[in-house]
């Protein structure tokens, strides 16, 4: 029997939360006990967050991936690979992917193209040699050895890469502006302040392959002539910060960062700044204010950061995903990148799929693929046989795309036409049980909370909109509310300085546009069709189904359920807080919501 060469355990935040560390320790124990010389390593996220913890076993150069692995299963997996036939049968059903095996999970990968995530889930992010073995730092060698600043920028322009943070500004043009600025000192910034609720692409990239971001920044620094860089990461991502710090230390040791890189005159250093929890800092001018140690409030542009950025010096800001694309483009040429995509949207886009979807996780798809393909082919469709209702793209700045537009291709222009935005890549799937008015209220409460307060329309307007939306969800909506919301939305859009305010009404506008009847149902008939808004629903018990088991009575936090054992129970509507705990607890589907 051939030897097991390597075992990988996915230990990103999601893998760890799912119990990855316990699996890793069990593997360590087991290989030690059996005196096996197997390379055990921790890797980043391969994207299948829905079946974490994941374990890859590499044998004869071929990989087999097991999903939902429990520490108990570890010994069986090893024995199966050592040739025990009966164990093979035990572990077979845990296989989610294999180089030589077709599984039903393959459709998760079939339509994906990995450029940004090329190393995630394969290399140990803490081991620089692994990154180097997969052509890491070759792009910067090529840049320093063979290319000029102009040539690098030309390649990026030719690739058609646009900023992946949301706005989609062409990266090459941005770099050229910064390069043209005549100043001795210039800065490079990586925006890792992934604040959109429902987005985790940047966290996964930083945790799984930090060196690709560092190398991208190095190339950018060379191209514009910068000598210092900052990576601004959310403090909520402690693991990403830890792995980045380690990666910077290692690349300094290897001479890729610091003074006289690769023996040339080019010097570049990177600092890490942990964000302190302000969504608006994702906006570039606010982010720079925050690095400078001020309140993170946006300012008017122009001057653009390329002319006057950090401390007034020319600065080039790109987000994590944009930076991670750079080494690939330089090394393999612009055409290797722009062969994917359509029209003005080239390359791939990373999405974090979440919400009511079967395969929630991290996916990278070529631009131009339709939303249907992403949600149903890659994502495996809607959880629990429910009906698809909408996909929310772009977080609080984006909008909800309804079922009628599910064949919209994923490219900047087509998505914008729907009223949503491409955004940074958060895609939250909603089913028939999601109330769209509640979703609009949710996003507005977020932006209202995060508004920095500088512009009146954003500060006060979002508050008034939230009040109206809250009223509607409480059954106190009035005739004319929808029109007021639309009017306020337009005013906030045109009266705000930065992206936060300009896009804050988008979730409201798109839900009104596509789900107006749902708003009207709330306002006119005081009904919530999705049975979500608490003031508009009542819980009751179905006498035919209730067995009198009493579970609902036990879990009810307000004592609203009464009834004798083995006799039908009832809910006191006056006392009921509509938390729904009873519905979750009932084994007989006897709790009705109307």
């Amino acid at each position: 029997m051939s030897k097991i060469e390597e075992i990988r355990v996915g230990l990103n935040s999601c893998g760890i939360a799912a119990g990855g560390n316990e699996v890793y320790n069990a593997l360590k124990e087991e290989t030690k006990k059996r005196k096996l010389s197997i390379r055990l390593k921790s890797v980043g996220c391969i994207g299948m967050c829905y079946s974490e913890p994941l374990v890859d076993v590499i044998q004869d150069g071929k990989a087999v991936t097991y999903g939902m692995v429990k520490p108990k299963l570890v010994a069986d997996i090893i024995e199966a690979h050592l040739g025990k036939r009966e164990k093979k049968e035990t572990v077979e059903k845990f296989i989610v992917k294999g180089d030589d095996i077709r599984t039903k999970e393959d459709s998760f990968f079939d339509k994906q193209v990995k450029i940004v995530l090329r190393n995630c889930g394969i290399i140990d992010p803490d081991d620089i040699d692994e990154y180097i073995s997969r052509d890491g730092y070759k792009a910067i060698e090529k840049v320093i050895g063979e290319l000029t600043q102009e040539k690098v920028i030309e390649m990026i322009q030719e690739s058609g890469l646009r900023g992946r943070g949301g706005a989609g500004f062409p990266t090459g043009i941005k770099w050229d502006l910064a390069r043209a600025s005549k100043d001795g000192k210039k800065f490079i910034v990586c925006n890792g302040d992934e604040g959109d609720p429902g987005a985790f692409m940047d966290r996964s990239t930083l945790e799984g392959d930090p060196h690709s971001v560092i190398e991208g920044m190095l190339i950018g620094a060379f191209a514009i002539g910068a000598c210092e860089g900052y990576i601004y990461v959310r403090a909520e991502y402690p693991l990403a910060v830890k792995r980045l710090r380690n990666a910077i230390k290692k690349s300094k040791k290897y001479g890729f960062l610091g003074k006289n890189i690769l023996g040339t005159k080019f010097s570049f250093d990177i600092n890490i700044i942990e964000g302190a929890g302000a969504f608006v800092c994702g906006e570039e001018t606010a982010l720079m204010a925050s690095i400078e140690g001020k309140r993170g409030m946006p300012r008017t542009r122009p001057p653009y950061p390329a002319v006057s950025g950090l401390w007034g010096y020319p600065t080039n800001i790109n987000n994590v995903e944009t930076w991670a694309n750079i080494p690939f483009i330089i090394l393999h040429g612009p055409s290797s990148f722009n062969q994917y995509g359509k029209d003005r949207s080239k390359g791939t886009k990373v999405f974090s799929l979440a919400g009511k979807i079967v395969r929630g996780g991290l996916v990278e798809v070529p631009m131009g693929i339709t939303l249907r393909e992403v949600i149903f082919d890659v994502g495996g469709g809607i959880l629990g046989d429910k009906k698809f209702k909408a996909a929310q793209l772009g977080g609080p700045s984006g909008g909800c795309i309804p079922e009628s537009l599910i064949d919209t291709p994923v490219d900047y222009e087509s998505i914008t036409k729907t009223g949503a935005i491409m955004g940074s890549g958060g895609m939250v799937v909603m089913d028939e049980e999601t109330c769209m008015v509640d979703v609009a209220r949710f996003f507005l409460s977020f932006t209202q909370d995060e508004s920095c307060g500088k512009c009146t329309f954003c500060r006060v307007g979002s508050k008034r909109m939230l009040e109206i939306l809250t009223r509607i969800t409480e059954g106190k909506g009035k005739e004319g509310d929808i029109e007021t919301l639309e009017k306020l939305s337009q005013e906030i859009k045109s009266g705000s300085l930065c992206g936060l305010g300009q896009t804050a009404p988008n979730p409201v506008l798109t839900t009104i546009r596509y789900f107006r009847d749902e708003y009207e149902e709330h306002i006119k008939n005081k009904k919530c069709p999705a049975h979500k808004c608490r003031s508009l629903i009542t819980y009751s018990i179905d006498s035919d189904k209730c067995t009198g088991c009493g579970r609902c009575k036990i879990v009810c936090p307000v004592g609203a359920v009464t009834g004798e054992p083995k006799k039908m129970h009832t809910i006191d509507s006056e006392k009921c807080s509509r938390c729904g705990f009873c519905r979750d607890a009932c084994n007989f589907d006897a709790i009705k919501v109307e």
Partner: protein
Amino acid sequence: MPEIGFCNKFMEMSLFKAREIIKKYQGKEGVLITILQEIQDVYGFLPKDTLEIVAQERSIPPATLFGIVTFYSQFKLSPCGEHIIKVCHGTACHVTGAERITEAIVGMLNIKEGETTSDSKFTLEKVACLGCCSLAPCIMIDDKVYGKLTADKAKRVIKRIAHDAEKG
């Protein structure tokens, strides 16, 4: 013996650590947020006395510094409990029932969002997004994420932490 609260611990440490942190970054730019974060790491919050030293040493008017501190949601001006429970209210968690997780914890610990239990064990917070959306609904206790929760599971996790703390 009564539990030693954060305030008492803070008195013991006095301001030595804060001064040390400020000294470490002397002469450097773009480090104010980092200094405040490190001070908060030591004391669990930003005691008024430490802020006065920061203002003085970094030559920032106290009012400006206060403006900065209150701008960012991470900074706290009053002590927190030993364990901080952050309930994620991101989009994915919202549609999968974050509100009910909060309700369950509120009912269990008898505190509201933003409050600390009377025994200083737990502080309950609401956060925008933990970025673990595929595990929704999730919470973070200290630096550890717990995912795919139900109201019951969330209560069990907290019970276990309270129990472990008592033992250890």
